[in-house]
């Protein structure tokens, strides 16, 4: 009983996370490319519920951030100038789901105040907005690469297991090469042999292709195993004896046997592939500037001065944890159910 509720709650949470990223345009107060040259490396904006006179308000407010004249790169708040946070405000235009043009954002403040929930980066760009939009890229890359990988895996695994013979031998030997290499080295090698200077949308597609085509071997092997034993089941033999064509047998009887493996593989692969995108972008081999991705947002942390002084630059990385936790727990639950 408890387990059933646990699964539902988990799915809802994971779903909400993905929804939040999908609605990045609506949830983020600023455009990803909008730079505030006056406020590079600004810390996360403090939100106040108590005003300068000590009165409590229901509506949160934000104070103006001013550069510190004494210390370079530091900021302090001008508590005399405070602005309330408004909800459902008008802001820069974005496209919901890449189709619908909207201008309404969930929250924002009137200029000259700024609301940086996660601070800003070296160019004065709002990290929170970039984080949500970057999430679209990282999550989508992970999901699409998983689709590709599983697609290839199901195709080759089924063909291999069903037809056997030389096809099986060739596919399995070829797959062994992919399994034999450490995955990141393989990703690097593949990426190395492809053009480096490409625009971000090309990079995105390329990344999906590379990540997806590296990981097909293990799912293919597992599916092949299921198909090998599955095609000998007596109800499959019976259907054959009535004259069922191979295509019919695969579609009606053999593929359904693979569904549970496909599901468990998907839940395992999605976070791995998201991580692959993040890693490649972090190292400069994936989606590059100016498009945000969780990976390239973390890249600047490698610089010593950033690491020392600007702790909020790590926030995009920390925000990865709930996503992964969600998937890990889902995988655990699925596995517990299977046994």
């Amino acid at each position, binding site marked *: 009983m408890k387990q059933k509720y646990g699964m539902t709650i988990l799915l809802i949470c994971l779903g909400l996370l993905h929804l939040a990223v999908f609605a990045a345009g609506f949830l983020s107060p600023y455009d990803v490319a909008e730079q505030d040259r006056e406020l590079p490396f600004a810390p996360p904006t403090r939100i106040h519920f108590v005003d300068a006179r000590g009165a409590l308000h229901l509506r949160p407010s934000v104070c103006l951030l001013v550069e510190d004249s004494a210390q370079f790169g530091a900021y302090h708040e001008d508590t005399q100038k405070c602005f309330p946070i408004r909800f459902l405000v008008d802001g820069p235009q974005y496209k919901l789901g890449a189709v619908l043009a909207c201008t309404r954002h969930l929250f924002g403040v009137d200029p000259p105040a700024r609301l940086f929930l996660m601070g800003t980066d070296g160019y004065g760009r709002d990290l929170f907005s970039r984080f949500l939009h970057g999430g679209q890229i990282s999550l989508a890359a992970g999901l699409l690469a998983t689709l590709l990988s599983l697609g290839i895996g199901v195709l080759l695994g089924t063909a291999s297991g069903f037809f056997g013979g030389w096809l099986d031998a060739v596919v399995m030997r070829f797959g062994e090469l992919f399994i034999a290499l450490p995955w990141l080295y393989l990703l690097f090698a593949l990426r190395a042999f492809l053009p480096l200077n490409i625009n971000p949308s090309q990079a995105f597609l390329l990344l999906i292709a590379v990540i997806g085509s590296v990981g097909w071997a293990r799912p293919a092997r597992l599916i092949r195993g299921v198909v090998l034993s599955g095609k000998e*089941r*007596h*109800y499959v*033999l*019976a*259907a*054959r*004896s*009535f*004259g*069922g064509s191979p295509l*019919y047998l695969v579609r009606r*009887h053999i593929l*359904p046997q693979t569904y549970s493996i496909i599901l468990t593989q998907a839940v395992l692969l999605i976070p791995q592939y998201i991580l692959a995108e993040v890693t490649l972008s972090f190292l400069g081999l994936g989606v590059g500037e100016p498009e945000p991705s969780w990976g390239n947002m973390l890249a600047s942390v490698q610089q010593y001065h950033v690491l020392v002084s600007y702790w909020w630059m790590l926030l995009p990385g920390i925000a990865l944890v709930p996503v992964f936790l969600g998937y890990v727990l889902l995988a655990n639950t699925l596995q517990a159910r299977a046994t």
Partner: protein
Amino acid sequence: MTPLIEVRGLRKVYTRTHWWQKRPPFLALDNVDLAIQSGQTMALVGESGSGKTTLAMCLVGLEPPDAGEIWFEGKNLLAPGANKRAKVGSEIQLVFQDSAGALSPRMSAAQIIEEPLLICRRGSSKERSELVLEMMGQVGLSPTWKDRLPHQFSGGQRQRLAIARALVLKPKLVILDEALTGLDLSIQGQIMNLLLDLQELEGLSYLYISHNLELAAQVAHEMGVIYQGRIVERASPSEFFSHPHHPHTQALLASMPLRLTYSAHGGG
């Protein structure tokens, strides 16, 4: 009169599938001859590994034999011109031993029985549904159960379902590969009676394969013994039990715990 089905010189060899396997070729069927008349039952008794299941597979078209002929209603099924196999395919059907494995766990009873009709594209949707319900009634399953899944049936009911599926294409020969083995004794009797009734009603021929002599004797018009891929004995039941020829038959009879008195078919 010409038998419904006649097998001559059937041969099947299992060779190694990979060059690195050390197993030598295995002769599963070695020059098998048999014949079954229309409306009659032949019982084939053999131990595990004797080749009985291979024979069933070859007859139903699931395994290609390496040599020999299968004459069905005057046509050689194994002659080049493979189309004969497809046309005749529906006339020979197979019922497996494990009813749970023989029925897809995802399909309802009605879908299972309907499947052969769908594959062979027989009749309209309405006609198929009617036929399915008719078959269920014939094998003794209530039509209200048509949406139930296999795991919701008992072993005996599942076997009835398997028989219904085998009969829906109106075959002439039904091969029962250990179809009663593993069922409770009382259920075995029920299914046995069902099979005999259907034989009378539809004029079916049966090839009843088993390792169990007692059951086989109760239904057979002719008894046979298969041993190491060869048919080593073919006789009427009375001959079989009173004067067995082959040493293996004698050994089988000697190992039976009870003295058998058979009653079906008047001892002929």
